[in-house]
């Protein structure tokens, strides 16, 4: 719930105080609708708790991430090891926590890359209009047809599998829809009076786009960002599962699931815990994203 509060106008912020006075401002309405959506709230709560736990993992993890105990391999869940141990006797609870850090980090960073590229591309395209717009959008159409995951695999293979390349590459596969959304918003916004006013005052184009247009596309961008994060987490897990993503000694939920599959006949718990965590995270983010979309899209809203 408090993740919403970040984007909410607050009394401390005088610029937004006016908007808050009118009780039916976009953000107030959105907040009201979202708080009625139980699934979205549950998702938001889960994600917040998870993000917090991932942040403080180094201080709360019961064992070291790399700490092996070869006399105690593939142990069942017990009081000593809540989720059991893996083939090298490493504590799974610890590894699932650390894996979550990597998965969430890659997901969030990749999504931010996609936001930056998508927003700039879409805003330029929409604001420029005319020939530039149609050429830029034609490029997006063509790129839509490319199966990006194969390009990412090729990149990972040939440039070594490092984590920076991983989230940049994943981010670069996800920006197309964002660019389309922002372009649509900008096209409808640029005919509004306040943009006309800014133009007539002689404000440079760069400022109009960055200061006046982009901030007004924030709603749809936030919604789509929330939906991009699970998709980036999923792609990262997909690559890691195949051995092409995060490399040892680091681990993400994808690599943990992959090593769980290898021993699932004798020790299914090695597979089950990271799989459940990944699934719950994907569910929560999807529900939250859908909830935010319903809340921020006045057209689709029913109340």
């Amino acid at each position, binding site marked *: 719930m408090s993740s919403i509060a970040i984007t909410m106008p607050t009394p401390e912020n005088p610029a937004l105080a006016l908007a808050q006075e009118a009780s039916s401002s976009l953000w107030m309405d959105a907040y009201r609708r979202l708080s009625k959506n139980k699934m979205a709230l549950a998702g938001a709560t889960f994600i917040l708790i998870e993000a917090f736990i991932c942040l403080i993992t180094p201080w709360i993890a019961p064992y070291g991430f790399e700490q092996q105990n070869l006399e105690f391999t593939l142990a069942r869940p017990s009081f000593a090891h809540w989720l059991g141990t893996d083939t090298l006797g490493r504590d799974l609870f610890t590894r699932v926590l650390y894996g979550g850090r990597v998965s969430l980090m890659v997901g969030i960073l990749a999504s931010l890359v996609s936001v930056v590229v998508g927003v700039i591309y879409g805003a330029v395209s929409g604001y420029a209009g005319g020939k530039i717009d149609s050429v830029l959008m034609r490029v997006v159409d*063509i790129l839509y*047809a*490319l*199966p990006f*995951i*194969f390009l990412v*695999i*090729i*990149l*990972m*293979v*040939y*440039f*070594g599998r490092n984590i920076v390349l991983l989230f940049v590459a994943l981010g670069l596969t996800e920006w197309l829809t964002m660019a389309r959304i922002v372009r649509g918003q900008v096209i409808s916004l640029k005919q509004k009076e306040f943009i006309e006013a800014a133009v007539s005052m002689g404000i440079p184009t760069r400022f109009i786009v960055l200061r006046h247009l982009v901030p007004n596309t924030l709603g749809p961008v936030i919604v789509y960002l929330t939906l991009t994060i*699970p998709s980036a987490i*999923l792609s990262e*897990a*997909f690559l890691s*599962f*195949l*051995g*092409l993503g995060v490399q040892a000694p680091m681990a993400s939920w*994808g690599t943990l*699931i*992959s090593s*769980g*599959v290898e021993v*699932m*006949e004798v020790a*299914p718990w090695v*597979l089950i815990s990271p*799989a459940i965590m*990944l*699934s719950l995270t*994907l*569910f929560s983010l*999807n529900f939250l994203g859908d909830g935010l979309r319903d809340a921020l899209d006045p057209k689709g809203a029913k109340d």
Partner: protein
Amino acid sequence: MGLRYLLGRLLGMIPVFFAVVTAIFFLIRFAPGGPFDSERNVPPQILENLNKKYHLDEPLLMQYVHYLNDLAHGDLGPSFKHANRTVNEIIGEAFPVSLELGLISLVWALLIGITAGGLAALKPNTAFDYIPMSISILGICLPTFVIGPFLVLVFGMWLEIAPVSGWDSIGDRILPSLTLGFAFAAYISRLTRGGLMEIRSLDFVRTARAKGLPESLILVKHTLRGGLLPVVSYLGPALAGIIAGALVTETIFSIPGLGRFFIESALNRDYTVVMGTSLLYFTLIFVCNFLVDVTYTILDPRVRHE
């Protein structure tokens, strides 16, 4: 308009394909590490011969010309890691397996998806609607590499009613194809439900109902064609998704398909196999997208007359 549009799409693919070939070729050649790096203690003379054999000693541009020339003749070159095997042989062996897996999965996806979505649209807000639509959320959110192992655990190991690896008997096809098809069945069921519900509220359906046509006939003759349009346009992305999903499915179930070869050669840096396989994937996806466009144009008169 329809025909010109399709022709334009077809011609537009050629430069994209060419760009992809060029990009992959140069990416691979500029990347660190040669194909024979991992072979230990290769005498310099042999290394030189190997490089000569695969034209690696010539200037980059010449290598590119060689590759384009071979490609134009349908020759994808030799595998660098599997001695005495060409990429064409490897693809010829592994591709039919993947094709079969993909087609069975697609049949599952369409069969389950359209049936479930159709039932849900016929009886909205009943158990026929809620139960399959709840399951479909699982299918959309959960990745193949969670669903696959889950099915293996439940049906393969605990209930022991289906084989979990290999590709020999009919039974071997069950779990992999269900794993791969599940996500798409889920998506298709939602699209079918949505599409049918939208069409059912249109005037011509009301007219049909007013004429006294039975509900089943209205469904088959009037709503199905329009209501399935979203499903048709989803088939392009679905096919691309099935190809990518097959990488995971073939790994989980130890199926000797193209996906496994692709991953194996990606991990081994078998340049030519990676290139050949990627090009095959790209071509397949382009062709499928094009066929989907053609189907869409046939089904939807609005596209034709625009």
